[in-house]
């Protein structure tokens, strides 16, 4: 099983295989899985599963066939299990609407938008009357730094489309050679001023009218599970993100006026290449072209402004 003698310890990408213990006396089995998290750290997940025996009635013919011996080519090899693999990844049944909208642009955005708003209004009303259970799952932890990534609050100046941002900013700063923003940041919208009742599902529905959504992250208080009033919505395509941005900026949603902005580059990028917008329109690029020390300074500033976001 083991490869080269030195491999196991030296290879940073090595992950021990999934281990599954037998069922113990209390009917509990333990599954140990290894994975890398977003920060590139190796994580070990231990899951304990209670196993129930379920009696199933099968016909006599089926029971008889259970005893059949392997034959043909299957009898010639000792290991028939190698022809049967259990998929490592979970396959979900996807709703076709998501993929359909990626294929064909919705013809009338405002109509479907209205529809979505109407549905949300109705659902909220139902929720208040207690007719509908709170079907929302706890926020998944797939974006641990989600809150931090947002960076500074208002960018101050007028809105510059993401594609033009870099160029405009670079021009202002005297033509730096910094790379354009990564696609992930150009499709990620930070939404603030959301009412507390809004769920991730509501946001998905609202933004889903513009195109295929990659991920919705609604910031919640880890203890109270109350919404903190802001969220991140990532689209799969830049054009969709921009349309959503144009259409929903200042849109009245559940009695509050939505405020949208493109998410700032993540903290990791900021630390590496400089960046992370401070207050002021051209902050983004001046950080990118400036020296390392300045980038660090702005980094801390960003954290401060994030903290101020919290109290707002």
């Amino acid at each position: 099983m083991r490869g080269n003698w030195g491999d196991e310890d030296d290879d940073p990408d090595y992950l021990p295989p999934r281990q599954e213990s037998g069922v113990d006396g209390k009917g509990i089995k333990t599954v140990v899985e290894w994975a890398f998290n977003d920060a590139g750290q190796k994580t070990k997940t231990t899951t304990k599963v209670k196993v129930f025996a379920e009696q199933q009635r099968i016909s006599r013919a089926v029971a008889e066939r259970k005893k059949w011996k392997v034959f043909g080519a299957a009898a010639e090899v000792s290991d028939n299990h190698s022809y049967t693999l259990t998929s490592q990844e979970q396959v979900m049944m996807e709703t076709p609407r998501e993929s359909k909208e990626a294929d064909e642009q919705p013809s009338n955005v405002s109509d479907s938008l209205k529809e979505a708003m109407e549905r949300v209004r109705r659902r909220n009303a139902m929720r208040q009357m207690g007719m509908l259970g709170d079907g929302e799952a706890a926020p998944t932890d797939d974006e641990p730094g989600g809150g931090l990534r947002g960076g500074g609050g208002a960018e101050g100046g007028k809105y510059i489309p993401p594609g033009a941002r870099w160029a405009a900013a670079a021009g202002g700063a005297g033509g730096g050679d910094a790379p354009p923003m990564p696609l992930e940041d150009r499709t990620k919208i930070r939404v603030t001023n959301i009412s507390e009742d809004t769920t991730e599902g509501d946001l998905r529905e609202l933004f889903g009218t513009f195109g295929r959504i990659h991920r919705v992250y609604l910031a919640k208080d880890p203890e109270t599970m109350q919404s903190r009033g802001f969220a991140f919505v990532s689209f799969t395509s830049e054009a969709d993100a921009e349309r959503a941005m144009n259409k929903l900026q200042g849109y009245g949603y559940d009695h509050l006026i939505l405020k949208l902005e493109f998410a700032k580059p993540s903290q990791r990028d900021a630390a590496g290449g400089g960046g992370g917008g401070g207050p002021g329109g051209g902050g983004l690029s001046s950080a990118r072209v400036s020296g390392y020390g300045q980038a660090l300074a702005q980094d801390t500033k960003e954290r401060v402004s994030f903290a101020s976001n919290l109290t707002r």
Partner: protein
Amino acid sequence: MRPILLKSHERAITCVIYNADGDLVFTAAKDNVPTVWRADTGERLGTYIGHSGAVWELSCRWDSKYLLSASADATVRLWDVQTGESLVSYPHRGPVRSVCWAEGGQKFVSASQPFMDSPGFISIYDTPSDVDPSQYQQVASREISIPNKEKCTEVLWSALNDRILASFEDGTIRVFDPETGELLSTSTPHSKPISRMYLSTDRTLLLTCSKDYTAKLLDADTLEVLKVYPTERPVNAAVIHPTKDHILLGGGQDAMSVTTTGSRVGKFETRFYHMIYEEEFGRVKGHFGPINALAINPDGLSYCSGAEDGYIRLHHFDREYVDKQDEVPDELEELDETEADQKPDLEE
């Protein structure tokens, strides 16, 4: 779902079927070796060695004792399911595209394609269950010759074995009398080749799928088109869910054009449609070639798909799907307010 991948075929999968009890899965591919698997664990149970050409279709007798395979080597073979032994080989005059046991297993029908000067045939063979298979006649008890070298893609028995339904590459379904061989009726539900037909468990509904990008649900008796399920790619396989009002469609770009289409638009998913509202509600991804074959367990708890990529994926449905109640028409109405013509039939 955590699908189980079955990988022993070396070429594109052509056919996947369950036996009547739903504990065995039989698969056939363009390699020459049909294979049987255990439906619960996906363990390979055995292979049927003997054909020298692609195997196009399989049919398992109701009691899971015998298996029939239709092959491009111009034979149909009768196999002992348990031992993998080839008991009878039925010679044909061209590649055999389809084979089907009659209800009760006293006879079967096969469809061979035109070859050289010979036209295609639909042939009926007698397989009385009180006679040992070694005594079976290898000569067809009735042969129906297909004019104009037209290609038959699938043959099925209607309820009570009173008629034979045959689909053709010109998009027609023809109905034959199995006793006289007479052509009873012809209907043309599709404009392009019909790739497969599937009868519901009670044999009252016929689902056809075609290269014209649609699947259609027909009354198995009158062949009247009841429902249409449009997609945007050729449909190669379709099954009706045995316990829910759902249908599953599989397909994708032709193998030929896969390299010239973008990876995202391959559309190799299994698609789930509501049978009555004709609305697509789910997709399951996984294959990286067009799906050629679909089969659903008679208990409705698992299904199997085989594709051009040579993989068979065995899916056990999540509890969530099994317990899911179909949306009520009210809600559908709300969704489709703008499309008044697509309102579902409230009376079903």
